[in-house]
């Protein structure tokens, strides 16, 4: 029974990881501008890779490897999110204008006070 | 004292370790005092030269000096193997290198930014280390490692003045040199897959019985392509004129006298130590490649000489002259006759001294009055007699007129060609010599027989540390021309051994 539960969990996590990766890739290809592309591609790393690693942890059972994998997960989440933030911020600061639908009035630029 | 004489024979690795130690400490030493770099490099080169020359009695054509690094026997570990040719190269490298370091002192003070001077000497020591290591190693992969060091350092030394043209020439050199390094690495990989070994002698043993002859043949072709670029053989010589003429003059002397010889030593090792005439029985590639190389050598003689004649720039002319001599040396080595091999090896020595002297003279001309064009050398014979006479004597050697080393070298090369019945090579090589005489004596003519009406009194002899090395090298060509018998019998024995393998 426990075997079945574990396998189901692993399969589910792997599938969700694949879904996130697929979504991330499609988003990267289909989204109109940098800001929009950042959104799916960071999810790709955090959720996709992390669920696959979680699946691996469940599959391997508890050992020293799990600690390493957990560390990898942690740093993956950290670095991917921070990278997305840094890219978006520097694009915004260097004046990349967000995309807007043709014919629709764009949002006025956000006021950000510079420290 | 006797202990000091024996230490190099006990531990030949010191030939590499000592200059490397000096190179590693040179930037640290320079933090204390920038001007202390020159004596430091000088000390390093002197110790190395002493170690190299103390080996002279220990190596003979029949007896090579071997040393197993880390104590592992050859197929498993790396072996240093100093045979007679290796010892000859090491002695040339240390002697010419010592003179070049001495010559550099005033030249780089004048030519380089002061913060680059320590790195200049570091690079100089590194390139010496690598060339010595390249000449004495018995291991193919170690050869490649050493080749990488002297390649990278020579790119840097060409570009060190920071002028735009220098950087461009160095980049061209880098592109061709990196490709050739890659080719050599590929060749080593091919040979490793065919023989499973990296030691040269072991490979040559394995090649006698290997069932992968075609792989070894492809490796041979790749080796020849790779080392030809380093040696600046005719179709792949295009980097040489730019790099050698734009580099600082001591560097030009170093590159021309020693670094391109490394390509030749590489070819020599591959042709005769690794494959050997014995390989010809197993695959026709060996003879084919040797034939191609000797034709290319003749082509380099003629093309180099023809291009040298039409140059107006002094250093560019000398650079083209190097291509001519690479042709002579390789012609001697590939004619496969004992005398030809002797002539080729002897020409390495003759050309190192002659061409080193040429570039040193060119450097003095640039140091004193920034004269680069040949017609600017009017009247130099009167204002700078030592320099002009050094050039003239070296020119005699480069052209091949007795009693100089160059004559002996060419004599033996042509003798070898005649012995093998290759009279067409003799004729073509003699035409090359004639062209060489034209471009060399044109300069001598300008120096001695045309004069500026009012000789510029400020343009007298350069510093003694600059013209003395040039004069010493010129004297060396005469010395080895007269006392050629110091080397010829041993070289003959070595050549006989090499061709019998």
């Amino acid at each position, binding site marked *: 029974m426990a075997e079945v539960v574990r396998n189901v969990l692993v399969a589910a996590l792997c599938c969700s990881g694949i879904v996130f990766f697929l979504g991330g890739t499609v988003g990267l290809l289909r989204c109109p501008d940098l800001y929009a592309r950042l959104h799916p591609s960071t999810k790709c790393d955090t959720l996709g890779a992390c669920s696959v690693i979680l699946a691996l942890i469940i599959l391997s059972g508890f050992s020293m490897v799990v600690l390493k994998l957990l560390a990898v997960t942690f740093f993956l989440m950290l670095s991917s999110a921070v990278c997305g933030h840094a890219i978006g911020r520097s694009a915004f600061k260097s004046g990349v204008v967000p995309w807007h639908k043709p014919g629709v009035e764009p949002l006025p630029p956000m006021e950000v006070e510079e420290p | 004292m006797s202990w000091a004489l024996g230490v190099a024979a006990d531990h030949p*690795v010191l030939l590499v370790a000592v200059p490397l*130690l000096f190179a590693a400490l040179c930037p640290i030493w320079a933090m204390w005092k920038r001007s202390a770099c020159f004596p430091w490099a000088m000390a390093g080169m002197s110790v190395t030269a002493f170690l190299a020359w103390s080996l002279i009695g220990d190596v003979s054509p029949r007896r090579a000096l071997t040393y197993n*690094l880390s104590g592992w026997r050859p197929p498993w570990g790396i072996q240093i193997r100093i045979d007679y040719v290796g010892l000859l190269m090491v002695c040339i490298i240390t002697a010419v290198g010592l003179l070049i370091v001495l010559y550099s002192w005033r030249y780089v003070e004048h030519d380089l930014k002061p913060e680059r001077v320590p790195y200049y000497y570091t690079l100089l020591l590194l390139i010496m280390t690598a060339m010595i290591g390249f000449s004495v190693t018995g291991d193919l992969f170690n050869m490649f*490692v050493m080749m*990488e060091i002297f390649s990278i350092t020579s790119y840097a030394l060409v570009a*060190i003045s920071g002028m735009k043209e220098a950087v461009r020439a160095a980049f061209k050199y880098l592109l061709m040199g990196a490709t050739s390094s890659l080719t050599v690495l590929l060749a080593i990989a091919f040979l490793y897959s065919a023989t*499973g*070994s990296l030691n040269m002698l072991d490979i040559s043993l*394995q090649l006698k019985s290997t069932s992968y002859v*075609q792989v070894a043949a492809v490796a041979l072709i790749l080796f020849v392509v790779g080392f030809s670029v380093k040696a600046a053989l005719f179709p792949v010589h295009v980097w040489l004129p730019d790099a050698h003429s734009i580099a600082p003059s001591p560097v030009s002397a170093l590159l021309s006298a020693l670094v391109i010889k490394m390509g030749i030593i590489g070819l020599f090792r591959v042709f005769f130590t690794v494959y050997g005439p014995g390989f010809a029985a197993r695959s026709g590639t060996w003879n084919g490649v040797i034939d191609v190389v000797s034709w290319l050598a003749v082509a380099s003689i003629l093309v180099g000489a023809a291009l040298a004649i039409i140059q107006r720039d002094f250093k560019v002319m000398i650079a083209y002259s190097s291509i001519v001599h690479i042709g002579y040396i390789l012609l001697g080595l590939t004619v496969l006759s004992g005398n030809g091999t002797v002539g080729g090896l002897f020409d390495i020595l003759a050309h190192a001294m002659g061409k080193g002297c040429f570039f040193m003279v060119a450097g003095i001309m640039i140091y004193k009055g920034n004269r680069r064009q040949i017609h600017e050398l009017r009247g130099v014979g009167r204002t700078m007699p030592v320099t002009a006479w050094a050039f003239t004597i070296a020119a005699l050697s480069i052209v091949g007129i007795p009693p100089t080393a160059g004559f002996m070298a060419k004599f033996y090369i042509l003798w070898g060609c005649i012995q093998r019945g290759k009279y067409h090579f003799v004729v073509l090589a003699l035409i090359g010599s004639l062209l060489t005489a034209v471009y060399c004596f044109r300069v001598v003519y300008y120096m001695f027989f045309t004069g500026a009406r009012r000789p510029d009194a400020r343009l007298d002899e350069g510093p003694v540390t600059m013209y003395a090395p040039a004069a010493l090298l010129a004297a060396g060509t005469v010395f080895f021309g007269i006392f050629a018998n110091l080397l010829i019998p041993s070289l003959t024995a070595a050549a006989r051994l090499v061709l019998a393998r």
Partner: protein
Amino acid sequence: MKRLLVLVALAVIGVTLLYGIGKMPPMDSRASPDKTHVVPRYLGHGEEEAGAKNIITGVILNYRGYDTMGEVSVIFSALCAVIAILDREKKGRSRSGVDASRVRTSLIVTTVVRFSLPVVMLFAVYTMLHGEPSPGGGFQGGAIVGASIILFTIVFGLAVSTKRIPPGARVPMESVNMLGFLSMGFIGLAFGVQFLTYILPGLGVAAAETVRKLMLDVIELGIGIGGGIIFISIVFSMIREDRYELQQDVP
């Protein structure tokens, strides 16, 4: 015309290489020379002879340690080449793009880098010293050290990094990799064995083992620290904004 020539040359090279590869022993054959000649000794006796569980480390540091000394010198000469052409940065005065930019680096980024830098360093040291029983070694660890400090410099700017690790402190560390090899080699010579031999005579078996382990560790650390610092120095002299322009005219 030129294009055609290049294409023909490439085709000739490609055909030659493919011919050679086609004649090579097949990859999975157990009887090919590259698996039967030298390798069996490495695999069979490497662990006790070379003193490393990871055979690669044994080959790199012991059987072919002299080659590694050469490779380390290659890196050092690359550094000398870069410094000789681009010159070194000035302590605290050189600026990179971040120093010059008006926009301040995001607080999130700086915080995360501050937090992760020591962890990366720890991993680098682990890689350096753990090269003996597992994959890794000095060079890889050094590259990681270099990468982490380059990350720091990208985020905080060159002025801050050069204050933390000034050129004066880096110069002695750059040649540490060669000095590690040379000093271990000279120790061997002093004991009367060959250069880079790690088993010193005149010691007991256990003591000799310990000394060998120590010497290999010194060399690994030397390769790591030297390699890392060399990476850092190369990057620093490349990213500084106040570099000299190339001289246009012939002096």
